[in-house]
């Protein structure tokens, strides 16, 4: 019986000309968003390639200086290239596997770091934080696949299911339908199942097709994207079902569905963000910069005071002692910076924990989070990169420290053997999967809560004659 109702309902839906039109619109939106996303990924990759090319070019020039240009006569003027402090390195964060899905947080965090041994650790990202994009474009939000899915897919599902049962109630045929040998619950479940087949599966298939066409190859990531999007679409179907049990006619149901969309996609996230701002406001970056710069000044003053007693060595070492004094200043500064930055870092971590926890406020937030993680454009990955880039700076400093200790100059052989390279280590699979499963659970449980509410409502309303 259920199968027959599903078939009948599906046939009825397919006869309406609007359904293929909805699929077409969704396909066009997805294709446009994927094209946009691919263009962004290309731009990001070319920016990263330019940063890496800059690193190679700097190293080539320094090597050429050592090989061809520095002579005992001009060493006083151009000799800097001989010291290990001349190592100029870059750390870059490549886009993730499904980067075409969403820009996510990628524009809110640095994509690279410039590593010079004596740079203060709080400044290594400075050259890579400020974008030149038109702020109007950023303020409008990127038109990417995540936007189409999180914001527009619900409208597609609601457009096809807002009158799931309200139509029958409006026409007065609900009592007749319910007089047939089928329970109200089964009837509604069958009608919802038909819509799930026609409003959930095709969009998921379209999304997968677009992602594959866009070059996505990871089966696991594609499967996870499909699961998240299907759960999300089913959530909106559950909302339409509940609204249909409350609304007396199709217009009321449409208003109810739209109000639900507005609440869950616009208002609740805004309120949740307000709550996060109240409970865990972000640290002030301007205050932090001043505090850290003050520490750098203090380190300089302390080092100068300590260095005044040191007499020039004879014979003079290969590397001037001023660089060793600078190394001490940098080390002292690093300690002071770490201490001064700790409260700001703790405040930011607390805020991120709040933002992370508040994804339970709406399935829309949970899905956005899941898609950002799949795209490798999430905050956790960006922070992981920052930590590793900082670790790389410390490694380079330790290496330079050895050169200073051994009074060893850089040679062309050092460049030929290859200077240290940054390699990003991704989070363990378990950690990434855990976060994605949490997002999926938020969406699934929200949908289950709606179904439970629908069931309770159904228990109270059995005749639908009002």
């Amino acid at each position: 019986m259920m199968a027959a109702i599903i078939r009948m309902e599906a046939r009825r839906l397919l006869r309406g000309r609007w359904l293929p039109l909805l699929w077409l619109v969704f396909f066009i939106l997805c294709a446009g968003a994927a094209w946009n996303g691919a263009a962004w990924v290309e731009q990001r990759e070319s920016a990263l390639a330019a940063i890496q090319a800059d690193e190679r070019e700097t190293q080539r020039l320094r090597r050429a200086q050592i090989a061809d240009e520095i002579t005992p006569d001009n060493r006083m003027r151009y000799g800097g290239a001989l010291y290990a402090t001349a190592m100029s390195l870059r750390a870059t964060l490549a886009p993730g596997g499904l980067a075409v899905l969403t820009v996510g947080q990628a524009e809110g965090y640095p994509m690279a770091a410039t590593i010079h041994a004596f740079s203060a650790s709080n400044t290594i990202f400075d050259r890579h934080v400020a974008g030149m994009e038109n702020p109007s474009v950023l303020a409008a939000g990127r038109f990417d696949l995540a936007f189409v899915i999180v914001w527009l897919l619900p409208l597609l599902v609601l457009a096809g299911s807002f009158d799931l049962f309200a139509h029958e109630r409006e026409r007065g045929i609900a009592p007749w339908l319910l007089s047939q040998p089928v329970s109200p619950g089964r009837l509604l479940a069958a009608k919802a199942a038909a819509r799930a087949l026609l409003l959930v599966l095709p969009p998921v298939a379209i999304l997968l097709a677009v992602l594959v066409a866009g070059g996505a190859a990871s089966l696991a990531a594609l499967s996870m994207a499909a699961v998240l999007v299907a759960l999300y679409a089913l959530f909106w179907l559950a909302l339409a079902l509940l609204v249909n049990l409350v609304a007396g006619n199709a217009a009321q149901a449409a208003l109810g569905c739209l109000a639900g969309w507005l609440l869950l996609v616009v208002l609740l996230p805004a309120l949740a963000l307000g709550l996060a701002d109240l409970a865990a406001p972000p640290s002030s970056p301007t205050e932090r910069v001043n505090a850290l710069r003050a520490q750098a000044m203090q380190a300089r003053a302390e080092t100068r005071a300590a260095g005044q007693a040191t007499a020039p060595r004879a014979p003079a070492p290969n590397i001037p002692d001023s660089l060793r004094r600078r190394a001490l200043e940098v080390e002292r500064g690093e300690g002071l910076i770490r201490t001064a930055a700790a409260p700001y870092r703790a405040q930011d971590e607390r805020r991120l924990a709040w933002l992370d926890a508040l994804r339970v406020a709406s399935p829309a937030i949970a899905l956005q989070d899941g898609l950002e993680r799949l795209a490798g454009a999430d905050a956790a990955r960006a922070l992981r990169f920052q930590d590793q880039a900082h670790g790389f700076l410390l490694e380079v400093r330790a290496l330079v420290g050895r050169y200073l200790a051994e009074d060893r100059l850089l040679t062309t052989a050092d460049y030929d053997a290859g200077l240290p390279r940054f390699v990003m280590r991704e989070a363990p699979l378990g950690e990434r999967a855990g976060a994605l499963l949490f997002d999926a659970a938020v969406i699934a449980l929200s949908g289950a809560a709606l179904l439970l509410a629908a069931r309770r409502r159904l228990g109270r309303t059995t005749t639908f004659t009002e």
Partner: protein
Amino acid sequence: MAAFTTTSQLGLVARQQWTSLLRERRLRLLGLLVLALSALALVDAAQGSRRAESARLHDTHAEREVWEAQGAANPHGAAHFGRYVYKPDAPLAVLDPGLSGHLGRALKLEGHQQNASRFKATDGGAALTGFGGFSPAFALQVLVPLLIVFAAFGAFVGERARQLTWQEIGAGASPWQLMLGRASAYGGALLLLLLAVGALAALATIPAWSGAHLAALGLMLAAYGLYWLGFLGIVLALSAVSRSSRGALFGALGFWIVAAVLAPMLAPALAEARHPTPSATAFEAAVIEEVMKGPDGHTPRDVRFAAFERATLARYGVRHIDALPINYSGLLFEHGEKISSDIYNRHFDRLYDGHAAQARIMLAASALSPLMALRPLSAALAQTDLPAHRHFMVQAEAYRYATVQALNRDIKLNRKPGNGEYASDVAAITRSIGFTPRPYALHELLPRVAAPFALLLAWLLAALGLMRLGARRLEGSA
């Protein structure tokens, strides 16, 4: 006499519709909800603005202390260490934050380099922050039109509304009078909302009160009024031409989705695709290439510096730079700074030209959505748009250039050859150079808001035309 009858009939219809609006409990609630949300957002924004201003004063003071803590330092090293300046909040940002969240609150000023502003409010977020917060402008630009849709889609459709319309026509009112009467009633409600928001915004910005401030606020409110009336006219016309309330609702909602959700998101993406601007990395690379190869692209820096050295020796009539009465490094820094600043200015001009071309496309999208005309207008009057930001950046650049060149001049005039490490009191050198950014005066903004105003007026006229068509349709169906 005829005019009197027409006016009194119009008043009658408007009064009747007004009463019916007041009796509609759901609409009352929705209206109050929108007003409450706007008021809440305004209060929150006003508090945020006060906090931001006090943080700015604190940061400015702390930054000066850090700069002065350098004591005796190499002036060129100090130029690299750099200074920070902080952008003040525009008072009307409490009503429309515009692009503030994406513009950056501080700017690092240093030698050889012109930076973009940094520390955007949107930096360091998570998935939740991508949804954006709630601002009064969002309520006025997006939610009020939705309220108009909910309130007015059923003005002429549905059993009750149709019966009432027929009775009114039967009593002698013309369909156009009915249309104008309903528009007056809804318009009156919107006017009350506008006045309430205006009063709240004025109260939230008391410290900034001046003739120009209140005039800018008045212009903003007028623009919102035009926008809402245009929206209302279209929804009423759709209601008049629709056969069912469902059709009217879907038509009006469809228009809202296109005008308030899709167009504002798609137009910037389209504009960026049509007039792409360089990424920060490409921008920096282009500047560095020009610095290294010269503006003509064929004269390497070494060659240009050698020519400069020859010219300097000739000018002072000496044979070696050690014989110069000034320090040559300082002179070279000064010369190099002038060259790199010119290059940066040229590239920034090109970048902003690209942004302006994108803005023109976005404004052209107001053919699809009146919001695309309202947004730049509102942000321009609130001074939270890109031109206002550029105005700040240009002033900051003048300050940077003066500071860096003062430091270079000190080296040029005071460093003696063979002195070894040179140090000077950098705070004393730069103490006389101040930075007090000036916002745009109202008369400087007006030319920029004229076109969007005209477009909003065009929308209102088009809506009146559609209302006229809708009235004819009503006449036919009566």
